[in-house]
């Protein structure tokens, strides 16, 4: 798994919303094909970190290298076209167009890379097949989440950022989502960074753990190391 050059390398990242310094000196890396969990409490800075990677919101300082290239001055849309794809927490499905159209929109970013076909998508998410013609606003939260992930996949990402993909979903649906992600990892060679609070879901989907608290990365290691220090859970994740 460990290749010499990671897919994503972030060093000394700071992010600001107005005057408040939300992400402080974060450094992390994700290797090709690796799946990493980003754990932290509500408001710890998970979403801000993800948006910072795409330069889509906060004011950002620091270095971000993706696929060996410096992303400084690269616009958010160009970042997604290079294969850095974010599925945001609030999903942002377009309500006035159909599910199929929503999913096809994702293909905009796949330009120049091995594209994902619609057949492949509907094979991966058979649940979506009967929903194709429905309008975006006619779906449940779980369905919306599926559409959002499918749309993200259509962009043929090299690194898919999922921001709390199972937040607010029923346990059964969470389970399905975990299976979907496992299947995606089997069929496509892509890396994942999943922001989560749901430990068991995160554990099923990822190989490694990043722990963030008050905007600082406080732990970076394997699940085994994470479990070896129960204090971590107590200090940074307990409500």
């Amino acid at each position, binding site marked *: 798994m460990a290749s010499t050059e990671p897919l994503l390398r972030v060093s000394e990242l700071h992010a600001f919303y107005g005057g408040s310094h939300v992400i402080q000196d974060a450094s992390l890396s994700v290797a090709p094909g690796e799946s990493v969990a980003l754990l932290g409490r509500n408001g710890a800075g998970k979403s801000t970190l993800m948006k910072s990677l*795409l330069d*889509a*919101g906060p004011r950002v300082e620091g270095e971000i290298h993706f696929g060996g290239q410096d992303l400084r001055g690269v*616009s*958010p*849309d160009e970042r*997604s*076209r290079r294969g850095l*794809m*974010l599925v*945001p927490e609030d999903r*942002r499905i*377009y*309500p*006035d*167009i159909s599910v199929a*159209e929503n999913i096809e*929109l*994702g293909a*905009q*970013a*796949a*330009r120049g890379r091995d594209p994902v076909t619609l057949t492949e998508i509907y094979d991966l998410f058979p649940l979506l097949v009967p929903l194709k013609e429905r309008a975006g606003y006619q779906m449940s939260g779980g369905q919306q989440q599926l559409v959002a992930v499918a*749309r993200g996949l259509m*962009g043929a990402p090299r690194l898919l950022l999922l921001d709390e993909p199972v937040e607010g979903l029923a346990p059964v649906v969470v389970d399905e989502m975990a299976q979907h992600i496992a299947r995606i990892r089997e069929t496509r060679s892509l890396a994942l960074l999943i922001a989560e609070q749901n430990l068991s879901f995160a554990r099923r989907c990822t190989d490694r753990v990043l722990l963030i608290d008050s905007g600082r990365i406080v732990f970076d290691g394997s699940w085994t190391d994470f479990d070896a220090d129960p204090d971590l859970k107590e200090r940074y994740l307990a409500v």
Partner: protein
Amino acid sequence: MYDIGMTVFNGLAWAMATFLVAAGLTLIFGILHILNFAHGGFFMIGAYVSYSIMLGFGGGLPLWLYLVRAMAAGVVVGLLGWVVDKLVFRRLRDVEDAYSLIATYALLLICGGAVTLIWGLNYMGVMPPPALNSVIFLGDMFMPTYTIFIIFCGVAAFVGLELFISKTRTGRLIRVVAADPWMAQLLGLNVKRIYLVTVIVSFAMAGAAGGLLMPNQSLSPELGGIFLLQAFGVVILGGMGSIRGAFVAAIVLGLIESFGTYFFPQYPGIFFLLALGVILLLRPEGIMGKEQTA
């Protein structure tokens, strides 16, 4: 009967002339959320450019050349739109409404000044091409062909814009960007370029409207302001940049203005404002707007 027919006809003429000006305004308002004060100014520049092209041909044009000339004015003003987007609109995306209103008001002043410097102050008038300079009698109603042509142009502009927005790929992307530009960029859409396309299309429509309506209006540096309030009213009443809404609003206001003048000729020019005020108070989100955005 005759009077009612003519009043409706005149109301539609008002409505479609106004819609031709308002269509591009609606587009920018719906997608960039900028209420562009300068739109009237660029409409005026379109009319002047078209006039200059006509002088180049020595006046008295056949219909097709008249249309080509209006399109050429559209192209020229569309290019100005490109410049304005690069220099001005691009910088207005993250500022408050007040600032973008003022910036475009400043642009309107600059347009007026520029027209004065380039074309001077004299009034100029242009007649419709000979093919459109006659009258059709329908019973005892007389309808100038040029007015019929303007109504036709208004409808054509509406249908064309609707098709562009709903059927073409660019149109669909424009709608996506209008609905949620933040997500659109995350999906790899070049939002800046789509905004640019919108601005160019909107300006080109203003320019072409100037070229088409020129035989209807005297040319003077005041022209920029003449349609402005009317077009604003139509856009706002239409609701949140809805093209369909603006089209309906133009017809409603045109008919009210026309019938108001018919029944109360001693108070000319006040009905459009009155109707606009009353309807907006009853339905502040406009005809098609689902909800208002602050």
